[in-house]
Structures are given as structure tokens and as C-alpha cells.
């Protein structure tokens, strides 16, 4: 009996300990509301470089090229922001992180901001702050070249399966556009592609630039001509409760999208996507 009682106590202790650890991280974060605490903007300028959370798993937004260097559209936008702070785009430290790690890393200040194909989504904004979108990537469905599916409506049959990413918006779109199809959910884009390639799924839903990039080297796929009409705004994300830093980053994005940095932004966009951006509302 004693051993059982010990076990229960240990279990409770662990649970309480975990809760306490969570509470502690939060109270550290909450201190930033104190006006005496410096804004990230001041901290970054004093440090002399900005630490940015990025992904290496989503070409062409962020990936490792043949030379082993971390490159991509998001990386170049981050460098443009570093240039905006220091007048020098090399004063930046790129921190590769997993998709689940981006939220705690933002909240506890490990990164100054993150830019990694992150769709702005209301539930997420309860946890971290976003700038306005720096790209509306567009969403497409990818099928095998020999697939009989031609339109989104064709997919809406029980015999078809669509591979989604864990991103919440993908499943929501699926339920709206092809509710009769079966859904599969993966935590990696490569697994989505494999599923289509090997016949596990009929189609997969992807950000258009990601799909077009993969298709360059994989002619066995094709993109449905009919694009999903959804607007998908990807935003730069940062910790809540830091108005000065948020205002700086949001202004940077606004300047890129339709202001003094538009030509730089346009060049980056052309470099990675091969076309010019639709001129955004300033």
C-alpha cells in the first residue's frame, strides 16, 4: 500500500511542479508590461544584432541550399528588417526552430521576432502578436499528373483523400470546399508530397509558392488550375506587450509592401517566385 500512496503523491507533485514551471515562465514574460523594462527594440540595438526565428523546412520560404546555407524568401525579408535597424543586413542571427517551438521561443524572448510561413490566425493572436501580412501566398491543390481530378469540385467525393498539414486553416478549407473527401493530416510538407506520390492521397493542399517550387524538380505532379480563393496572410510574429517593437516591425512591413522599401521587397519577391508582387495596398 505504501508504494501506491507514494506513487500518487509523486504524480501529484509532478503535476503541480509542471504547473508551477509554466506559471514561472509566464511571470517572467509579464514583466515586459512594466514601462521601466526596455523594449526589444532598445535591447536589439544595444546588442548590435537581431535574433530571428526561421524555418529550414519550407522551401522557398526558408531552406538549406546546396551550399549548406540557410536561404529563402522569409530569410531575405528578415535581412531587410535587419538592414532597417542597423543599415546592415549582416547584423542578424538566424535561429532555426521547429514549428511547435516558435511560440514558446517568442514568448520567453529567445528570439526577437519570427518569420517562418506563419499564417495570421485569430486563436494564435491570443498568444503572440503579428504584424500586418508581408505576403498573401495563395493556396493550391497538387495532384499527380495522371489524376482524373480537374477542379476542386471533382475532389468532393468519398473515394478521394486529401493530405493536409497540421495548420488549422487547411482542415477548415477542406471542410468547406470538399467535405465529402477523406482527410489525412501530416506534420511535414514532404510527407504530404509522399502521400500523393505513392497514392495514399489524391491531392494535397499547399501554399502556392511552396507547391510551385517543388514542382520545378518533380514533373510527376501538377497544380489544379483552379486556385483556392482564400486570402492567406503570413505575418511576422513577436511577443505581446511590446508596443514599440511591434510598431517598428509593422512599419517595416508597411514600408516594404508599399513604401520606401518596396523596390527591395519587389526584388526579393521576383528572386524567389519569378514574378512581381501584386502591388499591395500601402
Amino acid at each position: 500500500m505504501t508504494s501506491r500512496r507514494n506513487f500518487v503523491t509523486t504524480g501529484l507533485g509532478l503535476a503541480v511542479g509542471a504547473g508551477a514551471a509554466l506559471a514561472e515562465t509566464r511571470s517572467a514574460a509579464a514583466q515586459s508590461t512594466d514601462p521601466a523594462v526596455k523594449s526589444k527594440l532598445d535591447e536589439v540595438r544595444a546588442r548590435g544584432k537581431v535574433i530571428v526565428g526561421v524555418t529550414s523546412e519550407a522551401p522557398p520560404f526558408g531552406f538549406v541550399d546546396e551550399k549548406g546555407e540557410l536561404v529563402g524568401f522569409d530569410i531575405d525579408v528578415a535581412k531587410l528588417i535587419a538592414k532597417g535597424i542597423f543599415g546592415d543586413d549582416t547584423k542578424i542571427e538566424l535561429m532555426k526552430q521547429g514549428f511547435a517551438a516558435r511560440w514558446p521561443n517568442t514568448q520567453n524572448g529567445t528570439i526577437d521576432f519570427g518569420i517562418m510561413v506563419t499564417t495570421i490566425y485569430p486563436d494564435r493572436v491570443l498568444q503572440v502578436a503579428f504584424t500586418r501580412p508581408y505576403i498573401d501566398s495563395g493556396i493550391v491543390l497538387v495532384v499527380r499528373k495522371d489524376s482524373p481530378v480537374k477542379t476542386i469540385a471533382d475532389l468532393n467525393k468519398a473515394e478521394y483523400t486529401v493530405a493536409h498539414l497540421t495548420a488549422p486553416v487547411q482542415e477548415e478549407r477542406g471542410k468547406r470546399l470538399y467535405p465529402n473527401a477523406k482527410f489525412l493530416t501530416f506534420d511535414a510538407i514532404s510527407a504530404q508530397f509522399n502521400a500523393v506520390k505513392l497514392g495514399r492521397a489524391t491531392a494535397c493542399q499547399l501554399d502556392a509558392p511552396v507547391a510551385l517550387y517543388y514542382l520545378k524538380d518533380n514533373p510527376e505532379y501538377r497544380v489544379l488550375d483552379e486556385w483556392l480563393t482564400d486570402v492567406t496572410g503570413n505575418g511576422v510574429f513577436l511577443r505581446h506587450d511590446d508596443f514599440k517593437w511591434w510598431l517598428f516591425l509593422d512599419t517595416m512591413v508597411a514600408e516594404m509592401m508599399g513604401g520606401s522599401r518596396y523596390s527591395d521587397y519587389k526584388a526579393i519577391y521576383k528572386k524567389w517566385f519569378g514574378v512581381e508582387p501584386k502591388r499591395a495596398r500601402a
Partner: protein
Amino acid sequence: MDYLASVFAVWIRLYPSLMTGFAITVSLALAAVPLALAGGLVLLPLRMWSGRLVRALAGTYIEFMRNTPLLLQIYLIYFGLPLFGLFPSEFTCGVIGIALQHSAFLVEIYRGGIEAISQRQWEAARAIGMVRYTALRHIILPQAALRILGPIGNQLIILVKDTSLVSAIGVAELTMTGKVAIERLAATLEIFVAIGLLYLLLTSALGAGLRIIERRVSEWLG
């Protein structure tokens, strides 16, 4: 303290989906545990076969299964079988992958338990006129069973935790449910802690059950 309240709010909001995921994790474990235990028993005579060729083949297979990552094996089964025109569900592929690898570990535990019994016990049993089977059944196995129960329990707890790897092929078990919720709510820590506690609950229940079995068996064998 208001942060703890917000943590509980997240947990309450996610309760239905986490329970669905938990139920699938439990089903994975319930399907894989008996398969792995039985798979080990099937492999055992092959691994201890008197003919060298069979023994070597069984040994090679077991080493391959033990020494390659389970995640890789699950991927190979899930994405490999379609090349042969077979499309078992992701759940089935997951159960097969887990059972195959863990049966390879379990057969080594079984074998270790049997070989740990002194050779003299065999000789003594044969000396009083028992045939090989009778000696195994009445002298060796009861002693071996008692010794291997602990290690088997360990292995089964690892098995239960390994069910989380099946999330890679899209089975909506506990870990996958959590990953999806993290993507939605951007509350990584809160959700991982909730998932961790649920796994702890499951493995603790399993551990408690195994201790009861161990006690019963030792009482029964005297």
C-alpha cells in the same frame, strides 16, 4: 495565478479532442501489445533453433529490427507497401511497425531469461529422466518467467510511449492531436504538459497492472 487559470482554460477547451486522441493512443497500444508479445514468441524458437542457418537468419532479422529507428520503419511500411499495391490504413501500418520492432526486443528478453537459467538445471532435470520438453515446461520456464516479467514490463512501457511516433504518418493519436492544437492555439507548453500528463496516466496504469501480475505470478510459482 491567472496564468494557471488560462492554462486550465486551454485544457478544458481541448478536453474533447485530447480525449479522442487519447482513445486512439490506447487503441494503438491495445492492438500492438498482444501482437508484439506474440511476435516475440513466434521468433523465439527460430532464434534458439539448433540449425545454424535458421538461427543466423532470425538473428539478422532481429538485429535489423532492433537497430534501425522505429520512425523509419513506420515510414517504410506506410509509404513502401503502396509500391506493392497494398494500402493498409495508417492505423494498421502504425500497429504493424510498433509490433514488429518491439517483438524483436521482446524475443531477446525471452531468450535472455531462458539462457540465464543455469545449465545444471537442465542436466539435473534430464538426470531424473525428464525429456527436453518436460524439463523446459516444468523446470526452466517457470524460473525464466519470473525473471523476465520486469524487463517485459519495461519494454511495454517503452512501446506505449513509442505510439507517439505514429503521428508522423497521420494517425490522429494523442501527440498528433496535440500538434494540431498547438498549430491552432500557439500554446505549445500548455498543450505538451497536458499530453505528457495523459501519457503518464497511461504508462502508470500499465505499470501498476504489470506489478500486480508480477506479484500474482511469483505467488503462484511459490
